[in-house]
């Protein structure tokens, strides 16, 4: 009985594969260019700053300026960098500090008034030391601030222009006799000039087809070219011309990025006449730069690789 089952299984696999080879383009290498739209993701390139008009806890106003910064973002949405910041309070204390910047980008289902859908999030910690510029009683200054902010996108894919959030942390101005100030929920913003965004995700690469199996090697191009994510993956095309691909970021720079693609078609898109117009629907979902993406808006091009 067991042998029968095994034989039947093998026969089924062989027949299935033979059928697939017969019913579609059997093999070949193709260039794939897939543009996914209505799936905004962001690259944060600068620091959050706080305005002197915003009164922090303890009743004092503070201004945090991004004097100079260099921020790197990797494929899993992790932020690292360094910055020189100046901190000014309403007590005329001016401190200048070098801060280490760490953080990450992510997504949440929006839980904020008036907003719908998925929102990209930014968490960033600024921690560093410096000095006060008061000439008489100056001393070492310390700052640790954690920024939590939210970018929202409408269901129409409208991209945000800035990241609004809050600072929490502590600031020691470095002036003798001036205590550490606790900062709670102080408004802070990453401005639009420091924010790259895109609503289109360009996935391009090479598809190796040996029906029903597919293999993909390529990349995702991100908005400002700050991070290009190498992708590899595999999939299948079945008798109904449904193509499924599961792609993952490769190399340490892209690990954590994933993209699952499923398309349906009235005809085999890998035929000799490359009838990509036969693709009637396509959905893509995954995580890029730490942010969730999900869309069914697409444009696709498939050409034989010469």
């Amino acid at each position: 009985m067991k042998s029968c089952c095994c034989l039947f299984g093998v026969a089924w696999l062989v027949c299935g594969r033979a059928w697939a080879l017969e019913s579609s383009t059997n093999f070949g290498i193709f260039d794939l260019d897939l543009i996914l739209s209505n799936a905004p993701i962001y690259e944060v390139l600068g620091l959050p700053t706080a305005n002197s008009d915003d009164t922090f806890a303890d009743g004092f106003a503070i201004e945090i300026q991004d004097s100079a910064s260099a921020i790197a973002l990797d494929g899993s949405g992790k932020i690292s960098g360094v910055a020189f910041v100046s901190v000014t309070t309403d007590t005329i204390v001016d401190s200048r500090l070098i801060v280490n910047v760490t953080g990450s980008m992510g997504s949440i289902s929006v839980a904020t008034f008036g907003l719908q859908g998925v929102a990209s999030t930014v968490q960033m910690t600024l921690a560093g030391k410096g000095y006060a510029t008061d000439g008489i009683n100056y001393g070492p200054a310390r700052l640790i601030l954690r920024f939590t902010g939210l970018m929202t996108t409408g269901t129409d894919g409208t991209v945000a222009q800035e990241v609004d959030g809050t600072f929490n942390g502590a600031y020691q101005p470095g002036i003798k006799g001036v205590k550490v100030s606790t900062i709670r929920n102080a408004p802070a913003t990453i401005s639009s000039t420091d924010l790259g965004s895109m609503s289109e995700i360009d996935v391009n690469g090479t598809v190796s087809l040996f029906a029903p199996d597919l293999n993909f090697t390529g990349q995702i191009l991100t908005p400002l070219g700050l991070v290009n994510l190498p992708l590899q993956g595999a999939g299948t095309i079945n008798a109904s011309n449904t193509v499924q691909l599961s792609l993952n970021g490769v190399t340490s720079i892209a690990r954590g990025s994933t993209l699952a693609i499923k398309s349906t078609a009235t005809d085999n898109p890998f035929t000799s006449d490359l009838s990509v117009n036969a693709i009637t629907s396509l959905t893509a979902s995954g995580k890029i730069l730490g942010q969730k993406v999900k869309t069914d808006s697409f444009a696709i091009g498939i050409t034989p690789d010469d």
Partner: protein
Amino acid sequence: MIDKSQRKEVRPAFLASLVVLAGVAVAGILFLGLRHSQPPAPAVTDDQTAATTSAPSPEPTQPVSSEPASAPTAKPAPAQTQIPNAAAVESPTSVPKLAKTLNDETQPLKARAAAAKALAAEGSYEAITALAGALPNSPDALRAAIAQALGTSPSAQSVPMLAGMLSDASEAVALAAVRALADQGTPQAIASLSQSLFDLSTALNVRCETALALGSIDQPGIVDVLARATTGITDEDVVTQVLNALGSRDISETKGAFQNYLSSATVSPEMKVTAVEAIGQTQGDASAFLASIAQDQTQPADVRAAAAWAMSTTQTEGTQGPQLTTMLQTETDPDVRRRIYQALANQEDFDVSTIQAMVQKETDKTVQVAGLDLLAGQLRQNPSSSLQSFFDQTAAPELKNLALNDTTASDRMAAVVALVRAGTPDAMAALQQLIQQSTDPRVIQSARSGLTKPGH
């Protein structure tokens, strides 16, 4: 401890109906009471509330104001100036005026919300009755404001009212009720929030906000509720916020919950990464716990890398420098190695010469840049002649080369970051050369920014 069966006893929809009906009824009673100058009724008990809900409404709900709606400008003074703030409410006689403003549709929303806040702060039976009476016919924004105001109300009726609003059709109102219940923070409020968290019929956003709200309450039993939610809830969006809620608390009380979650065979690696990143946000020193996760070879590399990364994001400097250095000697996964270098930057101490030797042997460019960035930070904080010599002769030229020629854009940027962080004359010179030679606009911009010192 909140028993699950207890949470199921009172359905939110029933509570909402109860509150709405009670609100209409008591508003009518209050309206009659005001007209006939009768003394206020005694405090409402549960039984009395039930009885009230079955009674017919004595008056149709309408604005209490006798002013014609078409002539608001005929009033002698702007309404806003007549509204005392919460602290100013001292006399019970002000409640009718506040109630009038609350129900006056001709008033700006801001004024009506201020009246709601004052009534909630006053907290008397009459004040809460006025708020309940306003709920059924007010716009969502005002009902959300009422919910928010009830969060700080001393009235015992606040929590049941808010519990009923958790299932409000308006998500804005429900979210406001969630936050208000967290502000109340009583055992009854916790029970209502817990019920909402586990209730599949509750809107997703409300459940997510409920998780975060529970995490903000400083009461016994909260961690137990959240720990049960990590395993008892299947929706990953909700569980993510539950983990973030745990991450907002002190690691000393949440470590066990995180350990159980991370050791579960049914939890996906992606959710374990989420848990580990939440640990990085905890209060207290979580570095030893995170180091143990980063070292645990039974965990997937993604989880170990996330644990090392989380060590670089903790608010307090960790104490795991020696342990991380030891891990580097055996760790083979490049992503984990990169994250360990980044974690070392947030440790109190580590052996610089050992790290320097390992960085020089790195073959993966991404890992090498992370190592050089660590040494750059050390050079600025604790400079030594040997480290400076290494950096000027070897690291700075290598970083400049990477910033110019590496095929990975983020590696190029990371190299610029390391040069900026080092701040040595040679590093500055390398940045200057990058401005002239690079074709990458971001590299040029960041190099230029890195050369700009504060105040210049």
